[in-house]
């Protein structure tokens, strides 16, 4: 679906943000892109909808080279929710905001109404529909940005740091929501620092450092590799930290889930009783 081949990208100020990145995202994948501030995560995902074009190498989306397609066309299939919602919100009411892209894509009024209704309810924004997005809290603005992207039903949803400013409950809702989207066949790409959030979602993890991909694998293996995650300025999930201290007892170290951890400990104790 998205094919990144040996991509280099240099910003106009000569900062080389990507240095030979290759990555294949298949339809229905759920990928978390992780790494320290400045590792090139956002630069990479901005290539997926053509916002940035590679300096060298190619990015193809559904077989089409992003250099030969407009951002508007690519966006129809790839929805991008930015890190800072203020960069993407500008309408006077939440309702208008969510309808904006649909109007741009030329949907009929009736469909627009339906989709707006659907997206607003989905993200729990019904009571704010007439509010100005700028009167809402940071977490709420983030959900407006997400609603406005989901409304046009793109195949791929890219979320840049979706958990910033969200409390635990909202994060949990967001997690369930993303997992559900993915189960419905949507391809989901999340750029995030939030280790515990990733540990709970258990996606494929692409770890980046200094413009390169360091490792690409399932969450459990990547996040429990203490050496790699530390190099990428990430702290292993708390459960895996606990288990790293128990390896002397013959317990596995690559555990990230609370309930899996419990079962292993119960097994260990039970076996000896």
């Amino acid at each position, binding site marked *: 679906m998205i094919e990144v081949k040996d991509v280099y990208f240099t910003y106009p100020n000569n900062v080389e943000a990507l240095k030979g990145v290759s990555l294949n995202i298949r339809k229905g994948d759920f990928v978390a892109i992780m790494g*320290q*501030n400045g590792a090139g995560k956002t630069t990479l995902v901005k290539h997926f909808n053509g916002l940035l074009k590679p300096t060298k190498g190619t990015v193809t989306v559904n077989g089409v080279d992003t250099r030969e397609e407009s951002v508007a066309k690519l966006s129809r299939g790839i929805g991008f929710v930015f890190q800072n919602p203020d960069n993407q919100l500008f309408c006077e009411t939440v309702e208008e905001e969510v309808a904006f892209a649909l109007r741009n894509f030329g949907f009929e009024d009736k469909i627009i109404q339906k989709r707006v209704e659907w997206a607003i309810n989905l993200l729990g924004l019904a009571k704010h529909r007439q509010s100005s997005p700028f009167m809402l809290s940071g977490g709420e603005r983030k959900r407006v940005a997400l609603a406005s992207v989901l409304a046009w039903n793109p195949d791929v949803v890219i979320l840049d740091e979706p958990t910033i400013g969200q409390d635990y409950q909202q994060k949990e809702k967001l997690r369930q929501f993303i997992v559900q989207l993915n189960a419905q066949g949507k391809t989901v790409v999340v750029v995030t620092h*939030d280790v515990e959030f990733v540990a709970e979602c258990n996606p494929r993890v692409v770890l980046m450092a200094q413009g390169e991909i360091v490792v690409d694998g399932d969450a459990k293996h990547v996040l429990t590799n203490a050496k790699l995650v*530390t190099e990428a300025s990430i*702290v292993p999930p708390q459960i895996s930290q606990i288990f790293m201290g128990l390896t002397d007892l013959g317990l596995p170290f690559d555990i990230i889930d609370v309930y899996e951890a419990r079962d292993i400990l119960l097994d260990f104790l039970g076996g000896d009783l």
Partner: protein
Amino acid sequence: MDDILCESRTVNKTLAIINTSGLIYTYPGGREPSLVDVSLTIEKGDYVILTGPSGCGKTTLCRCLNGLIPHFYSGKLEGEIKVASLTVSEHSIYELAKHVGLVFQNPENQLFALSVEKDVAFGLENLGVPREDMRARVDWALQMTGIYDLRERAPHELSGGQQQRVAIACVLAMKPDIMVLDEPTSFLDPLGAQKIFEVIGDLNKKLGITVILVEHRLDLASKYANHVIVMDEGKVVLDGKPLDVFDSESARLIGVGIPKATRLYQALRQSGVYLNRVPVNSQEATLLLQEVLTRDRG
């Protein structure tokens, strides 16, 4: 259950640096109060984590601590609040700023000068600190936060984590008794966040600065705190030691992001395995588990 929890923390009012009683506050035009009967005591030298769902009143409470409420935000304030022996409603923001420093979520909102040291000096210039004294205080604040080497750099060229340390240095240079930090690490990667928590922990331990940290990511932050306050719908619903608060049923119900170490403890307890204490971070959990696992083996 929660009442018991609140009372189990023995409060020594003579050590109180912040004391509120029956605080009720409604923003101008607000239909309902954002703070509802908030009574709490924070002792000098405490490291407090203030948490709770978005919109629960955390930020509003912070605004009361440095006098932004009621001096900048009008609205209706009832009850009493004393900070560093000053009754907030009777002292100006300018006076309170000498005692209470505020650090925001996004350092970009707070930094504007052309060099790091100019940014750090700005607050002191405003307070009219003499020049020689200012130099010494700026250097000291830069050293304490580990950014002395960056003093001549432009703040906007720095990484998010470095910028946040500059923001902390700006506040530290004012030598406040109390530092209030509103989600200071949400834009940072985990190691960057950990460094900020360490810097804050150091200021608390070495300088005895009272810290009030508004935070959702308790897994990372809870290591340093000795006091946790949970708010919900404008009220203080839990107030106590970290282990008591994290292990309470209501923390789970309100949806506080209880550290995974504590959740593992709870899951084991449900299955009849008891650790000696409630762990709030991974190091504690590892030690407690080692005890149980080796004991039952031998």
